């Protein structure tokens, strides 16, 4: 249980929620959120947008029942925050140029990723590519934590990036976008490893039910526990 510190509409259907929470959450991890009793049945997996020792925040888009209920919570309300779960993005020590590519609400985990990579090594160049179908959001916030922020509205953010410019790439967004990026990396012969953050549907969120299974070249993996971050080649390599 944590107390909600703020829960604000960012734009359109996007909300930013900050909750009181002791945590050691890392970039790319997620929480199972729940602010209701038994209906709906499942908790909702939402990535860590930002975190410090005493709080964690989430950027989420209102899609259906669960996120609708989340969006109605006011500061002071209690919420169950179960997590952090998952492996998160890798550390990437020694990489000099890192690209973070997000589409839609997939931009969420990239904020803490940019912050973390910059904090770990102030010399590293972190470029953030953000793709939106509607109005872009939080551009200033991302600019504050990255070296360059490239925004694409209504087109394909994957067109904007040259994978060969980077030593490592992390991406989160619609499956099709991540796949296109993987294929582009292959095509241009990029040597940078591509890390993709998967969004399979979840029930337990902790590795006990096998509903989030992702078939990878290394066998079946649990997105909630072994992921959500995998190498693009593991997921899209042998399709």
């Amino acid at each position, binding site marked *: 249980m944590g107390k909600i510190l703020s829960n604000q509409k960012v734009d359109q259907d996007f909300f930013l929620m900050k909750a009181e929470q002791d945590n050691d959450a890392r970039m790319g991890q997620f929480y199972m959120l729940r602010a209701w009793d038994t209906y709906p049945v499942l908790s909702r997996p939402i990535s860590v947008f930002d975190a410090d020792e005493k709080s964690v925040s989430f950027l989420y888009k209102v899609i259906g029942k669960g996120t609708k209920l989340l969006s109605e919570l006011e500061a002071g309300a209690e919420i169950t925050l179960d997590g952090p779960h998952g492996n998160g993005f890798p550390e990437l020590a020694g990489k000099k140029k890192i690209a973070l590519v997000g589409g839609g609400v997939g931009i969420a985990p990239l904020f803490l990723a940019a912050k973390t990579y910059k904090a770990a090594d102030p010399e590293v160049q972190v470029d953030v590519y953000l793709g939106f179908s509607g109005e872009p959001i939080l551009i200033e916030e991302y600019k504050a934590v990255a070296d360059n922020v490239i925004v694409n509205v209504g087109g394909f953010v994957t067109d904007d990036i040259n994978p060969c410019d980077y030593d490592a790439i992390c991406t989160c967004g619609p499956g099709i976008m991540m796949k296109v990026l993987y294929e582009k990396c292959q095509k241009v012969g990029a040597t940078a490893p591509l890390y993709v953050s998967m969004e399979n549907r979840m029930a337990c969120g902790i590795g*006990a039910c096998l*509903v989030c299974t992702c078939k990878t070249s290394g066998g079946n993996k649990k997105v909630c526990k072994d992921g959500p971050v995998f190498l693009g080649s593991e997921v899209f390599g042998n399709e």
Partner: protein
Amino acid sequence: MSSRLKTTFAGVEFKNPVVLASGTCGFGRELNEYFDIERLGGLCSKGLLEHPHGGNDGIRIWETPSGIMNSVGLENPGVDAFIEKDLDWINQKNLVNIVNLGGHSIEDYLKGMEKLNQVDLDILELNISCPNVKSGGMNFGTKTEVAREIVRKIREICRHKLVVKLSPNAEDIVSLAKMCEEEGADGVSLTNTFLAMAIDLQKKKPVFNNTYAGLSGPAIKPIALRMVHQVSHAVNIPVMGLGGITTWQDAIEFIMAGATVIQVGTATFMKPDISMDIIDGMEKYLEDNGYESIEEIRGII
């Protein structure tokens, strides 16, 4: 914790009648990080097949009003890997170790059984009710006389306590349970999930690659409770009751309807340690109502 909740099921002692249902708790390791699983009465392993199996493709979980539909399709590491990696760990825990065995064919079941005969475990739960596999699974469990064959063959060789897990999609679940009793099963558990369907309106396709999938959770509780009541009153072997149990009240209702042990499945997804709330609630209910033992309310309805 007092001894009020102590329960004997087919000669097996449970410190309390609360068991985690197959497929919703893995092999116990993950949940053990949320609470001490030794507080449970027992734990049913994820359904095993003789061989490792990757399970179904496509979406595996879908939410419905007060329920979920799943189509995992018996993804599992296979009996050998289970024995090697998890069995000892569970056996060392102070709780009843129930191993759930499935199969795609009679041979599958028998081979899996032979392997499990070589090791120690407390109860073998024979799953003839999984709706999510194309061959085997529930197909063995809808017609009494078809099911008889597999139950008989397994009983012949099974050296463990044998509980048969029944499908609510059976033509006649009471006759199925009676058959299990006749064939020498030590108990039955019910229900598995209800065969159900979901459609993705956007895609104009079934949500699940298999078209149908299994419905569980609070939505089905009233039907499962009815079936447990019918079956408990029709057989003399003990019954493990499950289907939508979410609160201690639900659990007590199943016990009053005749279940000896209850299992908690989907509810664990709402709150990983919800089974602890259920145990505590049951204990308190008995205490508040002056019952010395849960035996006093079993089957009173």
